[in-house]
């Protein structure tokens, strides 16, 4: 469980705090999507939770550990973090060496690394590239490697800071589904910062960040259905919802609750079958 209470944070030499009295509780095993405009403080919040910025005392607890200097090693042990820029987190000379980097830090014996690297690379679909050098990879492929690097460490909490922004839609879907499986099978807590409506839709809860505070904390169905809110935070509604609204506009009585693409397709098929 992650508990953030009354967190205010300001970068040095800045005249305004980025986060102002923010409180948030993320239960173990939840997938939380964090949305908000550019510069709303999403990355800052994520870094504070992971102890990668000087966190104000007594404001954040991760699995009952206070986030402070004394507990950093234990925190990094529990939290896997994938950053926005895939280039500047690629440490190894090759794909496999990069995935191995975190394992080496944890002093995993060389023999035990191999299966974990193999599994992590398979999970993100990069097995065929294991001997490639970073210059030979595209942005999206580097992001996949970064996710594999975090997964290989088998964290309890995974923080994805726009970690799939460069993946093609198909690839993103595959990787997210993989994460979904791990999330369900191992009660992995996921915090995913994203601008992508499909990724938002996969979460259990959505936190909308605005002006240094949580503007809204609700399920994806509720958040994505709120036209005004969606516009305000610069999101786009998923295609299925746009289609639903358009159908409603033309007088087709589509149910109001959130529907995924598959569910909408099912509903339309059923309607067509009964009409015919």
């Amino acid at each position: 469980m992650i508990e953030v209470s009354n967190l205010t944070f300001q970068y040095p030499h800045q005249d305004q705090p980025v986060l102002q009295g923010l409180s948030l509780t993320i239960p173990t095993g939840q997938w939380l999507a964090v949305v908000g405009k550019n510069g709303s403080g999403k990355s800052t919040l994520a870094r504070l939770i992971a102890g990668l910025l000087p966190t104000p005392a007594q404001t954040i607890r991760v699995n009952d550990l206070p986030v402070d200097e004394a507990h950093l090693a234990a925190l990094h042990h529990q939290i896997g973090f994938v950053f926005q820029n895939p280039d500047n987190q690629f440490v190894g000379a090759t794909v496999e060496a990069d995935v191995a980097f975190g394992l080496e830090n944890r002093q995993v014996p060389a023999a035990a690394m191999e299966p974990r690297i193999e599994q992590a690379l398979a999970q993100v679909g990069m097995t065929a590239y294991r001997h490639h050098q970073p210059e030979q990879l595209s942005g999206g492929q580097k992001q996949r490697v970064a996710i594999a690097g975090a997964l290989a460490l088998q964290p309890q909490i995974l923080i994805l800071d726009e970690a799939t922004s460069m993946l093609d839609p198909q690839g993103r879907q595959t990787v997210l589904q993989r994460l979904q499986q791990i999330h369900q099978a191992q009660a992995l807590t996921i915090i995913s910062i994203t601008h992508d409506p499909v990724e938002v839709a996969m979460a259990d809860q959505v936190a909308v960040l605005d002006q240094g505070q949580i503007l809204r904390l609700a399920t994806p169905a509720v958040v994505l259905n709120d036209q005004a809110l969606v516009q305000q935070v610069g999101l786009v509604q998923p295609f299925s919802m746009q289609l639903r609204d358009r159908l409603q506009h033309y007088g087709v009585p589509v149910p109001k609750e959130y529907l995924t693409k598959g569910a909408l397709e099912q509903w339309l098929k059923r309607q067509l079958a009964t009409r015919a």
Partner: protein
Amino acid sequence: MNNKVLFGMYLPGNSLMHRLDPRLKLVGCFWFVILVFFARTWWTNLLLIGALGLVIWLSQVKFSKYWAGIRPLMWIILFTAVIQALFSSGGQVYWHWGWLAVTSAGVAQAGFLVLRFFLIITSSTVVTVTTTPLQLADALEALMKPLKYLRVPVSQLAMMVSIALRFVPTIMDEVGLIMNAQRARGMDFSSGSLFTRAKRLVPVMIPLFVAAFKRAEELAVAMEARGYDPNQARTKFRQLHWQRHDTWGTVVWGLLTVALVALRFVK
């Protein structure tokens, strides 16, 4: 680019020399240099040429490629050799002008000098051509391990070297990117005197440094998040495995040494 071996450039391959343990290659090369200074007769040098020929043949890289890489250095060596020939004395005098003289001893010394330089440069090129920089860094780390007891931060230094090697291509790409960005703004890098051209590189260097510092900061945070602690012991994924052909290589180099000593003293 690829048909020329620059001094110190790796050429991918799968020859015996490529597969040899980088530690052995490094120590073997060092040992070879010692042998080169130990060899003073024609026979011993002939033996060393033979040994070098053997490793070149085993590397499956054509000698012409090595030669293309060595040639630029050979000019400097030849120049040194000519000076050596002109200024040393002894033996039969072939030609002289004032205190400059070409003597038989001078020519012989110059010949040995050229040969020694050639042997040393070529043997180290064989190592760099068949070993990736990263393998070399690994080998250096392994060989320097005893220095840990003298409080030399061997693993931190090795991490520094491997990160530097990892980012060389990235930063090269960035140079190209910034230069193109400046070209798009009308900057001309290819004309003018050397001085003006150097001056025009300033607007390339500054963004490059700024980007490099930002990169370094982000990388440091990412490494920390993945549990890197410079003061902690780490395990190693890339293990160096000593294999049978490495033992054979050591034996061959040992025999070379014995043969050399025998040729020099037993006579």
